[in-house]
């Protein structure tokens, strides 16, 4: 039996998204018996997809609520923070003769994208916080709807930029927005999850207690 040290990234993902102790133990046992890193990664990714599908199927109303909560938060933050900020920035930049469309040429504009990330993180946090029991699955549901919303535009701009370089600024803006939204929602949504999952869940403690009682 080799030392049990499976890929830490995969283990982290499994810990965050797959709440099945027996499955985690089985994967560790198989890995210690000589399975490859690729095998471990494959199993973890399938576990996340299967677990996510099961959670959403069994909690359809919660999933709908998570989407509604996330988009409501998104709408509010968009109109309270993002739109006024962009208007302000555009005005300042145009006054100084800088085109906001080519923002990436001006490194001092990079931090402004932090607002996009914080905005997405806030939405993810609200979704996660209001669905603590099924946090990971509900955050993923909301994230998927955001990605589905952004993806058609991103694909259209990808096609445009392949035909004409003129569209590069628009493509880059949309691409950065897509990445920042994804990272932000995941970070914000899973923020409290680490603390909650560090201690055994009430359910697993209950099962262990029942088992101990039945053995004695």
């Amino acid at each position, binding site marked *: *039996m080799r030392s*049990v040290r499976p890929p830490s990234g995969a283990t982290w993902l499994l810990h965050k998204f*797959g709440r*099945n*102790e*027996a*499955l*985690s*133990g*089985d*994967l*560790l*046992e*198989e890995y*210690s018996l000589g399975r490859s890193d690729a*095998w471990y990664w*494959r*199993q973890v990714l*399938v*576990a996340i*997809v*299967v*677990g996510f599908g*099961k959670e959403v199927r069994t909690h359809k109303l919660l999933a709908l609520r998570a989407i509604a909560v996330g988009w409501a938060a998104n709408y509010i933050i968009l109109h309270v923070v993002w739109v006024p900020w962009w208007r302000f920035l555009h005005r300042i930049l145009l006054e100084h003769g800088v085109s906001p469309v080519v923002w990436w040429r001006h490194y001092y504009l990079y931090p402004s994208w932090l607002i996009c990330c914080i905005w997405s993180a806030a939405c993810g946090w609200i979704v996660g916080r209001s669905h603590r029991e099924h946090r990971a699955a509900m955050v993923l549901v909301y994230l998927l709807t955001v990605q589905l919303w952004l993806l058609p535009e991103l694909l259209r701009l990808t096609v445009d930029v392949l035909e004409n370089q003129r569209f590069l600024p628009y493509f880059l803006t949309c691409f950065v927005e897509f990445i920042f939204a994804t990272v932000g929602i995941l970070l914000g949504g899973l923020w409290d999850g680490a603390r909650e999952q560090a201690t055994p869940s009430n359910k697993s403690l209950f*099962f*262990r207690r*029942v*088992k101990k009682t039945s053995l004695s």
Partner: protein
Amino acid sequence: MAKRDYLGSFELIVMLALMRLRGDAYGVPISREIEERIGREVALASVYATLERLESKGLVSAELGEPTPERGGRAKRYFHVTAKGLREVRQTRQALIKLWNRVPQLEGGAA
């Protein structure tokens, strides 16, 4: 005619693997048994999802073992086929045998 659910193909595979293993049936041996018999890799998560579905139908029962160090302190989850599960497998087998007989495309050797 009374409505009844037959076992799906993967459900049947998992049930048969479980019955072959008898007492020592948790995720690892079940998936190994399936891999050895059908000759392809199976995802442990799919095996667990199927087992949990079978458990909710009352076809298998599960109990938690003791946590062990080689599993990072995580307990094994042992599964057993219930009497209802055994009945269900028998009925599915009978139904499949009836369907299997006299299929013109399958008669006469190579397809």
